[in-house]
């Protein structure tokens, strides 16, 4: 729920049938202003269990362990990845990163501090990867993946599958990752957020050589529409650019017609995900001068 609605106790927003369940509250990134908070009971676990079904057991072997290298803190992500690992029979090792601090360093032009902080984060990840052969699966962000690959070959360290998130991931990064950073390792781009859950990407077809990333929402728990930014009543045509408008409905949470900070092209349904998706997801062009994303 949006900041400013939070004056009444959060429990007020919990459906009566779930009132006795432990309640989590997670924050969104806060790149467009005040972070928004969302209450959560079991949704994040369900979302990641459903996502788990889309992961291949060859690249993300059941029973193997995970390294979660990315922002933890008040976000859903840490618990979600941990649950994913547990759900698949492993454990998740964690390295924390504070993107809001990185944002401040960028704002102040502290390049040297940023380099030191990145090194600090990567050093911790390398220690875990070298100490635990059982780690086969990795969650991280594009920037941290680059930084990690500069130091080691992830293939040689036994990584078989990478699940990578962040809206700054575009077709060029996808191609760069597959061709140069982690050739031979399964690379799964995802788009997740606290309000929606986790969107899956259209599987990469090496024969088609098309690196466009197209995401499909976890219907029916969440759907998105691509709408005209000037007239959000109008849904754009397939292939046309629109702003992402999200509706989430689960047993614990209802958020209708939430305008995301992202835009992209409306994509046609595919066999695996027979509903609308979004291609080339990116920061809304009207915001792109004022918001820093993908700093970590």
């Amino acid at each position, binding site marked *: 729920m949006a900041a400013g609605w939070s004056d009444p106790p959060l429990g007020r927003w919990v459906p009566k049938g779930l009132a006795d369940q432990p309640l989590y509250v997670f924050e969104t990134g806060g790149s467009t202003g005040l972070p928004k908070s969302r209450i959560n009971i079991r949704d994040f676990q369900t979302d990641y269990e459903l996502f788990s079904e889309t992961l291949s057991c060859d690249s993300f072997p059941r029973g193997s362990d995970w390294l979660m290298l990315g922002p933890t803190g008040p976000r859903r992500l840490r618990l979600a990845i941990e649950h994913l690992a547990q759900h698949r029979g492993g454990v998740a090792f964690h390295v924390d990163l504070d993107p809001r601090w990185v944002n401040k360093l960028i704002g102040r*032009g502290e390049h040297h501090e940023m380099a030191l902080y990145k090194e600090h984060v990567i050093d911790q990840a390398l220690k875990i990867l070298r100490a635990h052969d059982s780690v086969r699966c990795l969650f991280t962000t*594009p920037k941290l993946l*680059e930084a990690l*690959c*500069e130091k080691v070959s992830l293939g040689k360290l036994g990584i078989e599958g990478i699940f990578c998130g962040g809206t700054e991931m575009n*077709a060029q*990064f996808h*191609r*760069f990752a597959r*061709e140069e950073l982690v050739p031979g390792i399964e690379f799964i781009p995802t788009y997740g957020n606290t309000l929606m859950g986790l969107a899956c990407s259209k599987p990469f077809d090496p024969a088609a050589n098309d690196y466009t990333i197209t995401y499909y929402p976890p219907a029916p728990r969440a759907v998105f529409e691509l709408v005209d930014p000037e007239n959000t009543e109008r849904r754009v045509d397939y292939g046309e650019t629109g702003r992402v408008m999200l509706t989430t409905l689960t047993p614990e949470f209802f958020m209708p017609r939430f305008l995301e900070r992202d835009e992209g092209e409306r994509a046609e349904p595919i066999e695996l995900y027979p509903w609308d998706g979004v291609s080339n997801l990116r920061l809304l062009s009207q915001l792109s001068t004022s918001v820093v994303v993908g700093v970590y």
Partner: protein
Amino acid sequence: MAGGGAVALGADGVATIPLVRGGESYHSLTTVELPDLRRQGHKTSSPVARVSQANPGLVARDLARSGAARQALEALSVAELIAICKRAGELFLNDDLPLGGARQSVDDYLRQLSATTGMPRAMARANMGKVHYVLDQMATVLGGLTRGLDLSLLDRGYGEQGGRAISYRRQSDLLGAVLPSNSPGVHSLWLPAIALKVGLAIKPGRQEPWTPYRLAQALLAAGCPRAAIGFYPTSHAGAAEILQRCGRSLLFGDAKTVGSWAGDERVQLHGPGWSKVVLDEEAAAEWPVYLDLLAASVADNGGRSCINASGVWTARNSRALATGLAERLAAIEARALDDPQAALAAMASREAAQALSDYIDARLGGGAVDLSAEARVARGGNASRVAEADGCAFLLPTVIHCESPDHPLAQAEFLFPFVSVVEVAGSELARRIGASLVVTALTRDPELRADLIASPFVERLNLGPIPTSHVTWDQPHEGNLFSHLYRQRALQDVPFGAVA
């Protein structure tokens, strides 16, 4: 490199500018379109170019392998590299060169450069000549940078000069160059790197990929080792990768951009020039004699260079001088970009021109007046500083009279012929001028000359009537690239058996 298949001109005839990775083309899936400044507001007009953009990680990955550039350049002598530069200069000036998968003629180059940067074609041509000169006369340029060092010494690493043992060590395999879009002449600054056996990682200015790309292609065609050439149009984050990872870099930008790298000895900063002409009492008394020099200093090259004067600091007669200079500069009009008489470069957009003009107006008063509007009207022109021609917006030359050197406009610098005329007592001049890339000192006063010679604020000093915009290539320019790239060290080499 992976995925470097040639993509020629798009079906729509738009030029395609790829990255250059180790001398090879790489077409990124992320591109930026460069519009034709003359077709603004025409939503349907096609861009002049689509420029491949490097993701920061790609830049980082390439720079981590700088050893290849070093090995390739070490295999050649400085003399051979000078010869390559000379051939490259010829090719740059006269030949069709690769542009993406197509070929670019000299006319294509000038037309494209003009369309996306707003620089008049004739001025672009003149800058092309400057850049060619540096490649053609590389031995002279290196002589100026090294103050006459026997360059074969760099091949061996040490030797003897003037009876003394002498040795230089290279500080970096690569020179990073984060470049501006204001004027192609600026590229003459990084070109000597290749002859000094240092590879290049170039981030072009957003509107001006044309010249560095053409230079890269000319060098490659002339036999420069492929591993020595990297060309990476990229974001701020990508630029930061270059600056963080190259042992030595040049960074061009506004005061804020360069400020965040101040104190990093790896990065040579090229911020605003704040170049000035200084007149003592005697020179100020005969100011009309210097009008040509002043006008050239302010307005040469469209006033776009950091070596253009943005200040005239005079011991007296400031108002008369400012009025006279305003009248002289009022003759400069907005003209079409392909007009051979064009002397102004177009601004990025009508809105940008208006915003900058408003910014200046908002700071007038408090002892600062614009004398150019009146001068334009007196010539039958328009009072407005913003003018239009050829579908582009221009800012007309602007002379401000400032009563005090503390006025904010007294130390302002903009990308068009803009100058503040400031009156400061002769005894105060050297102390008050502040950081200045070029100072032309019109004075015979031994004391003022000595003060300026000793001044830590003055990067280049012209003693006598030389326009600030006049560059001699046998002298270092804007910091010395040689001393940036090389460090002198002690080295002793005695034959075995001669143990003391």
